């Protein structure tokens, strides 16, 4: 009798403990990401009211290669991480940014921006890790961007709301006075924060849930071989869902246990793909396109990690 009545109590307290871990991890990811998401959505609001389609077509090269490469470097001007880059890219598509440039921006900007340069340098120093992280991220972003440049029909790639008519509640007019523009930019920021924030929240919940129930130590215990270690770090990048501005400090924690190639692949792939960013990608791109945006960087990061493990370090 006694044990029968005790069992549910201990089970409940087990669940309660797990719920607490879940809540702490979830709020951790959320509080960490919210400022960056706000930054990205605000940038998107400013682009909406201050940039028009004609300006965009003047700025961006018509040649796919040039547009793709300049897209990859746009992060130096818009310092956004992987949460903020999605609404901004969506906005730039609306303003007529070519697909290839948008994709390379989306993939490269979370790494190729001043904040991440500094955070990576403060974790690993101005050395090889920094150089290869940026070189390989740039390479992957440009290659995927160029692959998408063969797709001339954006309707195949972008969600209908983007390719076609506009359901936006707030409309910017080119000759609004400055205060009016700021007011509209703030309202657009709000709408996008709600629009994108829900996928951040769902993604953070999934990541926190997985972290609460899957033992990270068991994942780390598997990975030691030159292939497995890279695969484990890529999986971890997806699972942890941490912001690209701080992931170098997390990666630093794995330097003893993992090879240079494995850590590098974590630093390259993590900013491009994780649970919350995939949920946000699905709001901008059709599923087939998201598949390519996830799988191509995965394969290339894996390849980069393997090359380093086998031939360099």
């Amino acid at each position, binding site marked *: 009798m006694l044990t029968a009545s005790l069992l549910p109590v201990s089970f409940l307290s087990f669940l309660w403990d797990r719920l607490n*871990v879940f*809540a702490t991890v979830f709020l*951790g990811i959320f509080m960490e990401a*919210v*400022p960056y998401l*706000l930054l990205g959505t605000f940038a998107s609001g400013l682009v909406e009211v201050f940039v028009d389609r004609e300006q965009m077509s003047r700025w961006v090269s018509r040649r796919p290669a040039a547009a793709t490469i300049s897209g990859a470097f746009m992060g130096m001007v818009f310092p956004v991480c992987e949460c903020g880059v999605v609404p901004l890219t969506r906005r730039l598509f609306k303003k007529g940014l070519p697909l290839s440039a948008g994709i390379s921006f989306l993939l490269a900007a979370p790494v190729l921006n001043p904040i991440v340069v500094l955070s990576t340098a403060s974790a690993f120093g101005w050395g090889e890790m920094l150089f290869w992280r940026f070189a390989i991220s740039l390479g992957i972003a440009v290659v995927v961007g160029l692959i998408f440049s063969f797709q001339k029909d954006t309707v195949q790639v972008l969600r209908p709301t983007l390719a076609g008519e506009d359901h936006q509640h707030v409309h910017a007019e080119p000759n609004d006075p400055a205060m009016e523009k700021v007011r509209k930019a703030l309202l657009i920021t709000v709408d996008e924060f709600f629009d994108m924030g829900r996928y951040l929240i769902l993604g953070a919940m999934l990541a926190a849930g997985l972290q*609460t129930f899957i033992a990270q130590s068991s994942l780390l215990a598997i990975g030691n071989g030159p292939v497995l270690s890279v695969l484990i770090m890529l999986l971890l990048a997806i699972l942890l869902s941490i912001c690209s501005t701080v992931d170098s400090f997390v990666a630093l924690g794995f330097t003893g*246990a993992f090879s240079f190639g494995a850590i590098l692949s974590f630093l390259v792939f993590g900013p491009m793909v994780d649970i919350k960013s995939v949920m946000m990608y699905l709001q901008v791109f059709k599923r087939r396109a998201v598949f390519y945006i996830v799988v191509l960087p995965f394969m290339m990061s894996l390849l980069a990690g393997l090359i380093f493990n086998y031939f360099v370090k």
Partner: protein
Amino acid sequence: MPQRMFRSFQGLLLAGLSLLFVFKAVNGQLTWYINSRFIPLTILGMVFLAVLAQAVFSEIRRSRKHEQDHPEHYHEHGHAPSATSLWVMLIPLAIGIAIPARPLDSSAFDSKGFNTSAPLVSSDISAQIFETESEERNILDWLKLFNYEEDVIQFVGQKASVVGFVYFDATLDKDQFYVSRFVISCCAADGFAIAMPVQWSQADALQQDAWVAVKGKIEAITLNGSRVPLIVAESVEAVETPDQPYLFP
């Protein structure tokens, strides 16, 4: 849902989120979730959320005024926005309010694991720790020292004074326990526990997860194939949970 009602909920949720951040900041709980270096950024986010809430509320006033001034022109603009984004935004608010805040403790060990030899920071950091008084070093400092210094025997007999929570592990002897802390680089999502074994004759009187200050002398032992520091305790005292429950590398 009518446009204005949708806007009202948006405004309330933004204000609510901002207040949640204020509440956590005032209670000193922000560092239960994120590394202290990101606190300025969180404060910025909190202020910006309040600015956005204000922008939404003034938009509602504007549209109401517009309706009073031009009742004949007034019509609801656009499609009714979907309410799901409102419900989802309610989730962090509900979790933040309904589940009592608690820093990560031993109940997260199953999933997050714990480590007695954490290779955390580049080796040049250990030189700084080397120079600090042995009683000033925290658990992370000790583990770093044992990780990076070739000769750990030199630390044997040094005085140690660390704060952490109690963790019992089946592999330890009866008169031993772990004194443990979580280490956070970015946010609670990347947190993992580090621990030092402690030799203490009254170990079985301690409670799991109780915060203690351990004073004693360092001993070097081999655990799972690596050299780790053990504290031979002279005193183990119960203490309050520290303001910053985590260590930041």
